[in-house]
């Protein structure tokens, strides 16, 4: 039986165009043996959730530096619930003031990686907390949309 890789969707929500961090994370996760799908820039919450479901992601990683996270993160979590995909964990990184972290975690973001975090720590966290294929198999044709 083939050893399944952890599938991670790295997404850039909102208008923010800073992609250095997101791309570095993508490469680091790929080098660590994970399958990485990168959404590219300027995705709406709807597009991100739809991509995560379609790509059968084990984890969603949101990268945002624009300060729009208080609006966008809750929206993404809400959409995941509506689509029956709330079991896909979501982590985030970028420019998120420390004082916003508790509130974002309460909203449903599993972990937030602040500036200065090493890629090793992020890879380590994922390997520790995310199981390959841990969420239920989902048929995009039959699930509510």
């Amino acid at each position, binding site marked *: 039986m083939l050893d399944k890789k952890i599938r991670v969707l790295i997404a850039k929500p909102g208008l923010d165009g800073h992609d250095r961090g997101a*791309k570095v994370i993508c*490469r680091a996760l790929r080098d660590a043996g994970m399958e*990485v799908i990168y959404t590219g820039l300027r995705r709406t919450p709807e597009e991100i959730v739809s991509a995560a479901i379609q790509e059968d992601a084990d984890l969603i990683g949101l990268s945002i530096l624009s300060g729009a996270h208080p609006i966008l993160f809750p929206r993404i979590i809400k959409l995941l619930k509506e689509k029956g995909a709330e079991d896909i964990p979501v982590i985030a990184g970028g420019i998120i003031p420390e004082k916003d972290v508790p509130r974002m975690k309460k909203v449903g973001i599993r972990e937030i990686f602040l500036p*200065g975090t090493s890629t090793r720590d992020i890879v380590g966290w994922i390997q520790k907390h995310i199981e390959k294929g841990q969420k239920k198999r989902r048929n995009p044709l039959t699930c509510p949309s």
Partner: protein
Amino acid sequence: MRTGRRKEKSKVRKIQQKAPEIKKAYEGWKRNKYAKALEACASPRAFTTVSGRKIKELYTPADLPRFDFFRDLNFPGEYPFTRGIHPTMHRGRLWTMRQFSGFGTAEDTNKRYKYLLAHGQTGLSVAFHLPTLMGVDSDHPLAKGEVGKCGVAIDSLADMEVLFSGLPLDKITTSMTINAPAAILWAMYIAVAEKQGVSPKVISGTIQNDILKEYIAQKTFVFPPRPSMKLIVDTFEYGAKEVPRWNTISISGYHIREAGATAVQELAFTLRDGIEYVIWGLERGLEIDEFAPRLSYFFNSHNDFFEEIAKFRAARKIWAEVMRDRFGARNPRSWWLRFHTQTSGVSLMAQQPYNNVIRVALQALAAVLGGTQSLHTNSLDETFALPSEDAVTIALRTQQILAHESGVANTIDPLGGSYFIEALTREMEGEAKSYIRKIDDMGGMVRAIELGFPQKEIGDSAYWYQKAVDAKEKIIVGVNAFEMEHEPIPLLEIDEAVARQQLARLRSVKKSRELTAAKRTLADLKKAARDDQNLMPHLLKCVKAYATLGEMMNALKDVYGEYEEPVTF
């Protein structure tokens, strides 16, 4: 001064004659004294710059074979301008202290501008919020959560009027960081000035307007490359005739560097972008000396102090050569590389944020020693938020202390003649020229971007750097060494009330304008775009009719299409 020159030349020859002796003595010293002493030190450090460039333990005249003072350096204000573009440089006039600034509504930012000017800033620099940068209005679905967060919200001329209220546009210069919609914001600025009774012939400032680096690094592109280049050349053409004191482009390396490029990649890609703009301007039929004097540059000032100074000097030298020899420009003003500098944002750390004040001070010093015309110093809190008033005051004071207390601006190009600096300048010049030739061979910068070349180089450099930091091969104080807890610092917060205010104003502008007139200007704009006319006069009509930014951009999107970048990492 023929005798003087002969004396100078013979002195140079004497130094060159000594060079083989010095080389031999250096090798002996290195082998017998330095290497032996180093063994006892057991120092595990790698002596590389932040870009990974190896730095020698010592530089001597032997590192400058065939160095020629007149050919390689010359005097400030004399070709190739290595030491500076003006004879007087900072002795004649200090660099402009121009803090990039903008947040919330136009009222909020107008207040901050007045504060900064009152405290010694000498030029304005506008930071627009993301919706404006992307050419959408504050009521666009993608603008949700973004209004006023990264910069000031500008949806129409009405907002620009408030932004510059009480600021005489005949007395101050303004730089606007705007790219895809640059021509539109420029039209708004011109219209605001006209309302103040100030002629476009008098206003002075800069629009960033550099789309090539958007595809490469900053990513606030909207249209595909070719129509975007066309719009830029429209501004060159219009500016040359109607707004002669305006820099119609700020060819930028800052963002290329922030995206992960090394210092040489920043230097090379930026200059090659400049070359691309000149080529396109000439293809339009413009005379080189008509528009080249109004091309300006924008560089990063990053962590490695000496590498940055060498970079700035090499930039001036390469550009002078390119303009005079490659393009045959005759007006010396066309040969001058005039630049603004911003200290590196990506080098600031969230951990122990007060350390950032020191980082910025050193980076600012490098820019001053590198001969910048204009400078922005970052604020210590920018890893978390836009600058608070207290933090931006420290940033401004940093420049003022450099200018008035440190003494570094007392002489021009003080590091000129340093064996290290001259060797580094020469090294970077050579490497940058290699890259430029490579891109020439690919078919130019637009082609190189289509092939993904600069993007890949930058992505590779960014990844290499992160791995080096993760492995503690590159030390960042407070992050992977000397870590400690720190108290949270006060931050500027942008209330969601800003969005509500802005949406209300937008509704009111749309209600109070003459809709038929506005629609007509938009239809004319679209037709002019289809007919390939210079869009500036049409944009001016649109902005004066209070067409919104989003409406104008939509009209142009209909004609030019939208660019979607290939997703790679």
